């Protein structure tokens, strides 16, 4: 199994990449880290006539903190950079906790943030995290640019809001809301594709009741599943094992849309949804309480 022939372009600037993409949008594929695309080419699941390699475009690989405290990531930022850059763990600890769950270090040495987000594999961690963290994506073409919320970006199985001539070039991550967080994933072996994963955020008000809750699942449907109805059950409530169990039940029975696949049956995915939700909420609660007792992070 080897790729079918394709014309190879290696533009050395973003403008050059957008120009060639505009010319060949209908049958070109964009190569970022290649950790998802090259397997597809190797198995001839896709046979694009043109491949546009972004690895020689220097302006897409960056991690910046802007004046609002938002983390800005260039689309070609390697996943391993997120593990190593201390600003990620400091400003978006949920992301910092989740990145080591992405495949293996060998994959993360090449895989990129933008590539994973644009490929839209329902089993990928980064799309679910982007939604949970209210990320925005900057899409650019030769005709202009636009911002799209992560929550609007994923429209179907491996399908996104990207137009054929658009590149995802930057990700804007606001600071994580104050409170607790947890990322959990279940796989048969460490580094395997997730059977189910969950990104959880939980914040408490000064009386100890839930002020905000967010639960976003991966490998639980065609796209990441943002379980807003389940999470809403917690708002205004005192956190408790019973409350978490009710949320987990709602998420497992009504929020997720799992299908049978080689990693797990739909029934087992619903079971994992329930178990991981309860565990993630417990961890997020412990962190929320710990941060409530700690000095205000915004002062440091």
């Amino acid at each position, binding site marked *: 199994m080897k790729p079918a022939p394709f014309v190879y372009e290696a533009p050395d600037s973003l403008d050059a990449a957008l120009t060639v993409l505009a010319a060949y949008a209908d049958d070109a594929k964009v190569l970022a880290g290649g950790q998802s695309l090259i397997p597809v080419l190797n198995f001839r699941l896709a046979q694009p006539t043109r491949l546009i390699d972004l*690895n020689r475009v220097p302006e897409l690989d960056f991690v910046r903190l802007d004046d609002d405290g938002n983390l800005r990531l260039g689309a070609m930022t390697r996943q391993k950079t997120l593990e190593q850059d201390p600003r990620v763990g400091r400003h978006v600890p949920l992301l910092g906790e989740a990145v080591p769950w992405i495949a293996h270090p060998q994959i993360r040495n090449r895989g990129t943030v933008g590539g994973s987000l644009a490929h839209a594999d329902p089993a990928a961690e980064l799309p679910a995290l982007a939604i949970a963290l209210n990320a925005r994506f900057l899409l650019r073409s030769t005709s202009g640019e636009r911002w799209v919320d992560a929550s609007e970006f994923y429209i179907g199985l491996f399908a996104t809001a990207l137009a054929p001539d658009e590149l995802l070039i930057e990700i804007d991550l606001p600071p994580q809301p104050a409170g607790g967080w947890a990322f959990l994933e279940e796989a048969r072996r460490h*580094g395997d594709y997730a059977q189910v994963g969950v990104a959880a955020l939980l914040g408490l008000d000064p009386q100890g009741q839930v002020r905000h809750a967010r639960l976003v699942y991966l490998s639980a449907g065609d796209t990441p599943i943002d379980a807003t109805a389940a999470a809403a059950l917690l708002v205004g409530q005192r956190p408790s094992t019973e409350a978490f169990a009710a949320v987990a039940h709602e998420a497992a029975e009504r929020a997720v849309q799992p299908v049978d696949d080689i990693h797990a049956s739909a029934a087992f995915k619903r079971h994992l949804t329930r178990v991981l939700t309860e565990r993630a909420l417990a961890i997020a609660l412990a962190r929320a309480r710990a941060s409530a007792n700690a000095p205000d992070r915004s002062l440091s």
Partner: protein
Amino acid sequence: MTMNTATATHTVNLTVNGQPVRGEAEARLLLSDFLRHELGLTGTHVGCEHGVCGACTVLLDGEPVRSCLLLAVQADGHAVTTVEGLAPAAGKGGALHPLQEAFRDAHGLQCGFCTPGFLLTLAPFLAANPNPSEDEVRHAISGNLCRCTGYQHIVDATLLAARRLREATTDAR
């Protein structure tokens, strides 16, 4: 100047195991196949061709990557290390790399198909983690599959190599 067509060959200039190398490759030629067939470096093995088995692992600019998920043309201007580069003098009576010696002494291979991938995963791991626990070693090798050994002797070999490397560093002081 050749036209850029789907079957055009591209010149690839790179460093392999410390030596400058030049080859020709169609764009679709994978780095794994370039190393094996263009350069005759058959120590890099091809297993799954979708990134999960680790048999094709090489170092790109010092970091472990899947050579089956890189195009040869992407390696232009970069440095690649294959298993042949771990102990360049070994074929002429020189020493093996400590990891290779430990794999031999602790029986960390049977058929040897997965071994080059393990060695290139473990060499940078030990350089960054000179005193790993067994759990850390198992975690580090989770991206490499072995069908023969059941992994225990691979773990033993890694811990043995780590100990020998630490002792060598201590002895050298």
